[in-house]
Each structure stands twice: as structure tokens, then as C-alpha cells.
């Protein structure tokens, strides 16, 4: 079952001055439960692609359809709401809220969704235990290692029960051991809970773990391999 589909996706920056064609007609489908890496050299368009399928950027041309909804046609307000309920984000620099504890960071997104406190608390503890941080519930990000912060970020991304998780270079700031642990944990969540992960990465270790590797260059898909 396709959860994500792009049709003839184009993105041109600075259309009126010096146009830069970042994406040049990408057709892509992602099925539920995939563990997919989008790879490519710097400037290839992979981050632009990720931003567009994450509803953070609008295509110049083409369609982005997530479970039947054309998200490029949504108003900014509706798009924010759509992201909140359907897409999980993991960023390269963790981007946790430094004044909140690990527990509160995870709970925060469910709070935005308007879920009841009891439900939020239960799920937060379950998720932080699932990512191996059951004993660091009350630690603020500043007291956690990079790897631990990224685990909290993953727990936050899946707390909202999204259709898929977009992870932009999630291992770029981590050492090998933390990268290994994080990837193992995400793979486990993917396998056991059928959470769809889409990575944008340079990291060979991520490519190695991914079951599908899409290579983008000059704004087009140059290869799409499923292992």
C-alpha cells in the first residue's frame, strides 16, 4: 500500500532571477513499512525532496500525495496540522527543546495534538523505554549525549503516530557506536511496529541498513535499488 506518491515533481528556486532547478521531475512511491534511504552528493536535491514530501516546502510543479491527500494544495494552516498528525521529523542537529526534559520533549508533540495527559504520559514512557532511555526521563537535552538526544528525537517523531518518519542526516553528528545503536533501534521500530522511515543521508552505514536506496543527482532519481 502506497503511503506517499510524488508525480512529476519539480522545484525551481529563484524562478524570476537566476533559476536553479533543484528537482527535475521526480516520480516516487513509498510503501508502508519501508526503510528507505535517499542518497546523493551535496546539492543533488535530496534535502529539497525531503522538505517537499515533509510538507515544509511547496513544489513548483507536480504533485505530492500522502494517503490520497494532495498536500501541495493545502493551505499553510492545514499543512501545519497535516504535518503534526501525519509526519514525524528527525533532524541532523536533534533539535530538541532544551528547557524540556526528555519526557516533556516527547510529550510535547502529543500535547500539540490535543491528546489527554494520561495517554501522553503512558505513551511517552513506553517510547522512551523502547529507545533505551527509560532511565533518563527527567534529563534535559543538555545532560544527554548526542546519541541519546537523537533517540529522544526519534521517540518524539513517532510519538504522534505519523504515517512516516523523515530523518534528515540523522547520524551526521554521531560517533560510530551511537550511529550503530540508533540505526539498530530505528530498524527494530520499523520491523516490529511497521513504522516507515525515509532517510536523507551521506552515511554509508545508513545506506547499508536501508532496504531501499534511492540515489538522486541533479534533481532526478538516477537509481532506485531494493535489497
Amino acid at each position, binding site marked *: 500500500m502506497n503511503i506517499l506518491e510524488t508525480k512529476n515533481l519539480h522545484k525551481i528556486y529563484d524562478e524570476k532571477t537566476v533559476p536553479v532547478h533543484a528537482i527535475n521531475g521526480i516520480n516516487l512511491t513509498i510503501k508502508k513499512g519501508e526503510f528507505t534511504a535517499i542518497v546523493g552528493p551535496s546539492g543533488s536535491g535530496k534535502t529539497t525532496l525531503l522538505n517537499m514530501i515533509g510538507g515544509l516546502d511547496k513544489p513548483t510543479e507536480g504533485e505530492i500525495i500522502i494517503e490520497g491527500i494532495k498536500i501541495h494544495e493545502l493551505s499553510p494552516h492545514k499543512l501545519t*496540522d497535516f504535518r503534526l498528525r501525519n509526519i514525524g521529523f528527525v533532524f541532523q542537529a536533534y533539535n530538541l*527543546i532544551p528547557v524540556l526534559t526528555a519526557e516533556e520533549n516527547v510529550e510535547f508533540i502529543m500535547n500539540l495534538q490535543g491528546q489527554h495527559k494520561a495517554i501522553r504520559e503512558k505513551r511517552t514512557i513506553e517510547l522512551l523505554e523502547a529507545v533505551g532511555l527509560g532511565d533518563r526521563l527527567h534529563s534535559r537535552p543538555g545532560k544527554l549525549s548526542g546519541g541519546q538526544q537523537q533517540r529522544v528525537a526519534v521517540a518524539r517523531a513517532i510519538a504522534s503516530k505519523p504515517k512516516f518518519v523523515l530523518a534528515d542526516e540523522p547520524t551526521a553528528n554521531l560517533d560510530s557506536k551511537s550511529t550503530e545503536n540508533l540505526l539498530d533501534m530505528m530498524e527494530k521500530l520499523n520491523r516490529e511496529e511497521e513504522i516507515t522511515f525515509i532517510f536523507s543521508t551521506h552515511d554509508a552505514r545508513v545506506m547499508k541498513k536501508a532496504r531501499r536506496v534511492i540515489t538522486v543527482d541533479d534533481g532526478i532519481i538516477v537509481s532506485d535499488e531494493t535489497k
Partner: protein
Amino acid sequence: MIWSIAWRNIWRNKLRSLIMLSAIAIGLFAGVFSTGFYKGMADTRLKTGIKTEVSHIQIHLPGYTVNSEPGRYMENTGSIVEKISRLKEAEGASRRILAECFFKTAHGTRGIRIIGIEPDRESKVTDIFERVKEGNYLDDDSRIPRILVGDKLREKLKLKLNSKVPVDIVDINGNFSSRLYKIGGFYSTNNTGYDEMTAFVKYEELRSQLDLPEDVAHEIAIYLKPDTDVENVRQKLAGEFSGLEVKSWREINKDLAYLTESMDQYMLIFVWIILLALCFGIINTMLMVVLERTKELGMLMAIGMHKSRVFIMIILESVFLSLTGGLFGIAIGYGVIKIFEKRPIVLEMMRGFEQYGYSAEVYTSLPLYMAFNIAGLVVVLGVVSAIYPALKAIRLSPVDAIRTE
């Protein structure tokens, strides 16, 4: 949770927040204390003005306040005063005879206003008897009539207690009348101008010197019990004594009325100026907050936080910052005002203002509602100061903001 984040965000940069909080606290302390100080000054002036000079209500023959000839007197005033004294709202009522006279001494002649009073009744209306610094309050029944003069007049004319002074008056028949009075005492109010221009003698003495018939008076002064609606009583008396002119202190002494009405406004303007200055400091702080947290704000919007919530979060942060510093400053200011409510601040430099009725001893005063009003203005300050930074925050594009280093 937004409230909690906003509160905790204040303490992310402790030094910067403490500097801003201190500035707000000091500013608000200054605002509150100044308000309390000037309010205290105005209250003292008002209290003195009513208790010593005008009373709450005065009754005259119509037009007397414009043309105060001695022949324009009210009749049967004894029964009027008795009737008014029995009113439940009245603390006391006193009739007076008023005249302009010449006060002649070896050191000069002064034109002053002389007031003939019934000491017992007058003591329920004014506090002149409490303000006698030397001598007696017209209660000495000696052969030569007594006169009570102000301390300032003593100073100007080098008067001595028990010395005799002739007081010259033109009576109701237009005849020149001179009578010798013995200085029985000196009084001193907070209004040196009043002290220099006003002297008291007994009602009967002045009545006979002016050749006025019995039971007449130029003025009936009424002092009301605390918290009485003056205007309500004035209307009641005006209805009862329709042939007479019944005026409240606001109509009699317009300066005094203007003082009370304008003081609150002046103070509000003063506080607004302080808040305006603080506003720029808070705007600057909040702009720095937005700039420093661009990446975080981008992340919040990316994961699904609506711009309206981001806006509210920034506003709340600013309100918390303003309110924390503001309440601290208001509390200290209010505390200091409470201390000086009982023991006065004595300002020697204010002595010069005593001739205008202001006391150099200031008892600070600030009603609690005014402190709450100022706290309300602090909230407004917080909201207003954060609008521009908050607008800047929500204009950020999540994609660009996340990429910010």
C-alpha cells in the same frame, strides 16, 4: 505546556534575564514609589484643605462668594446650624462671620481675613484648635478679646503672645471700627499662605464689631463623617435651604478639586513614560530571543506547532519577564510606601511649597487598586513589547529557520 516552556525560556540566559528583570523592577519601583509619594502629598494637601480651610460643605447667602460684603449675611443661623448638626452624616457644623481687616503693628500693617467663630462648634469642623503652637485656642475669657493668628503672620509682623493689636474694620453701616485684641495664640497649618492671611476671633466679638444683628452669619461650614458622599449631602441641604447657596469643597476650592483629579492622571502618565522606556528594553531582549532561537522556532513550526501558538509563546515569555520584574518592583515600592505611611518623609527642600499648602512632611499613600492598575499596565507592557518580535518569529520559514546555524 506552552506556559511552562515560556516560563522556563526566560531562565535560559539567566544573566540577560536578570539584567532585564532588574531594569523592570527598578523602573516599576520608581513608578510606584513616585506615585505613592505624590499621592501622599496630594492627600495631605486635600486633607489639610478640607479639615483646616474649607470643610466639606459651605452655606452662604447666594452670591456671597463673589461679593463678600459684610451686609450679605444669613439670618437665623443658630437653628440652621443646630439642624445640620443633627444630620447623621454630619460630624459637625459651625457658623462664621467673615471680614477683611487691617492688622496694625509697630512692624507694619497687613490686610488679612478675620474669622469670627464659636470655638466649641468650630472644633468639630476644623482642626485649627489642634494646630495652636503657642498660647490658647480662644478659650480665655479675659476682658480684652483674644485673637488667634498664624505663625507666618507672627514671623512677618514680629508679633508676641499677649501683646495687643488694633484690628480695623469697616462695619455694615460703612463706619470705621477699631478694636483692640490681645494675641491669645499662634497656629500653624501646612499652608503658610493661609497662616499669613487668616486670623480667628470669637463670633460675638466680630459680630458686635461689625454691628451685625444677632444670630446671623456669613458662612456655615459643615464637616462630614468619613466615607460620606459629599455631593449627596450637598444636594440634600440645597433642597432643604433653597434660599441659600450650598456648595461642596470642589466648587469652593477649585484648585483643590483639580489637584485630586489631576494627580492620578499625572501619575499614570509618569508610569506610562517609565513603561515606554522599559518597552524598548524588552523589545530588544525579545528580538535577541527570537534571533537566538531561530532554529528552534523553525523546528517547532516544522513538527506542527501552529504559528498562532508560537506567537502566544513569545508573548507569554515577554509577559512573564515583565510581570516577574514588575511585580517585584511593585511589591518593593508598595512596601516602602507602607513604611512611610506612618512615619513621614521630611523634605527640607519642600518647605518653600508650604505657602501653597503642601506639607514638607510627606506621608506616602497608594491605594491597593492603583498598585493592581500598575500591575495591569505591566501585563500590557509585556504584550505590546512582544508583538513585533513575535511577528518576526512567525514570519520565519520553517525550512530556512531549521538550516540556521
